[in-house]
């Protein structure tokens, strides 16, 4: 039920983001969604792509520091309070969200959120236990 995400260390320098996306584009890797966390010196670009291994290889070849992280994709009813319901359930079980961001595509009527939890397995069982729909990686990569 995990989704593979790659994270890339990027210095806050002109053109770095463009370079990463160009390398991926040239390698035929399609970015499904992304989030960028940044400080004044550096940023961490987190990507979900259609081919994680390929993305990782081409970026490493070009000298970038890349890591693979497991995140969880959850369908969220696209209505007021939809996200709050999920967070409440997690909160009740003492699970921390390290970070989260939205997936660009919808899944039917629902929105999709990407979560990084401190305890991935526990979060998945909590969510599925409460009948939330956790999406497998393959669905996302090809969505």
């Amino acid at each position, binding site marked *: 039920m995990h989704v593979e*995400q790659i*994270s890339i*260390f*990027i*210095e806050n320098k002109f053109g*770095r983001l463009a370079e990463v996306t160009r390398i991926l584009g040239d390698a035929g890797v399609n970015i499904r969604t992304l989030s960028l*966390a940044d*400080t004044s*010196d*550096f940023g*961490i670009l*987190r990507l979900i792509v259609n081919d994680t291994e390929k993305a990782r290889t081409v970026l490493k070849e070009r*000298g*970038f*520091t*890349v*890591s693979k*992280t497991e995140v969880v994709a959850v369908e969220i009813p696209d209505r007021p309070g939809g996200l709050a319901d999920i967070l409440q359930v997690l909160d009740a079980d003492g699970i921390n969200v*390290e*970070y989260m961001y939205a997936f660009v595509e919808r899944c039917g009527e629902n929105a999709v959120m990407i979560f*990084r939890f401190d305890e991935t397995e526990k979060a998945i069982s909590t969510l599925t236990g409460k009948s939330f729909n956790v999406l497998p990686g393959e669905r996302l990569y090809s969505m």
Partner: protein
Amino acid sequence: MFFNEEFETLPREALEALQLKRLKAMVARVEKSVPFYKEALAKAGVTSDSIKTLADLQRLPFTYKQDMRDSYPYNLFAVPMEDIVRIHASSGTTGKPTVVGYTKKDIETWSELMARSFVAAGVHRGDIIHNSYGYGLFTGGLGAHYGAERLGASVIPMSGGNTKKQIMIMQDFGSTVLTCTPSYSLFMAEAAKEEGIDFRDLKLRVGIFGAEPWSEEMRRDIEAKLNLSAVDIYGLSEIMGPGVAIECCEAKKGLHVWEDHFIPEIINPETCEVLGEGQMGELVITTITKEGIPLIRYRTRDITSITYEPCACGRTHARIARMSGRSDDMLIIRGVNVFPSQIEAILMGVEGVEPHYVLIVERRDNLDTLEVQVEVGENIFSDEIKHLQALSVKIEKQIKEMLGVTCRVRLVEPKSITRSEGKAKRVIDNRNKA
């Protein structure tokens, strides 16, 4: 193991008697044949005849790098040009280089001392020495080369640069000994890794690294990544070249100075007072057998300490500590003395941090600022900002605690710090440019 057991283990009393005899003879030579020394000795009121004990050395005048520049190119030579068989010069980063000349006997002495150094490092006949020190005006390449041949080992005269070829030759020729700068050894290991070659799988057994200051932590890193025994070698062209001092593989605790040819002293660089055993100061060397360009109390600018304690290897020659830097590399940041090697030691003590760093010193609003750039490799990368920030803070805190200087750590992308194939450039001081 020794190359010249008799001289390497000479009892101290006999060694000192030999030093005194050779010192007097050298001073007698230069007072006759080098006008610069004739004048300097007269000014100091010393003649070779007035030297009665080794303590009289302290009455002799110092020789500075500037004196060598002023004598450019040949004015400090003590023999006629017909007797000079080799000329080397140091890289003149500012202005003219310093020029040194060797007689046939000087080359023989140098070869022997380099051969002694190889043996002390654990090298023997049958070894294949991959010599990546630069060949040319720089003394590193030819110095190590002649020593290797004198020992009877096989030497591959690689010189520096062309890293891919270096790796291929090392792999295909089965090199067992590597000689280069410590930073270049790591650079090669890293480059090899990118080609899918693990240095630990090569036949390398001994690494003899010098020409730049490095730390104990860096030694551990090199030994782990290259799977070899790494020893420190010291030398400078003004005195001879590589092989002035070497760590023995038995103890790896200080570098033996070949005292039957050089007399080392440690002085306070400001007051010029001679310091005792164990005290840190500037290394001063007097060459007592050199014919081409003998030097009296040459100020090396290298900072170290000395000990005469007996060593586990059986050599009786004094040991100098690993160089902590050069007195002219020393940074004064807000009044605090900092050597790049101290910062390196702290960085290397942090799990996963690579020895690629650069120090940037600037002056803002009349205050010195120090920025330490550290590369983020896979070992320390986290995809959470808070972990990376915690790492920066941890390094900043350790530098503050251990050196008493406030700095800012900046995490940078791998390979963004320029790699060097010779001496690594660790400091960018922008204070004087403004």
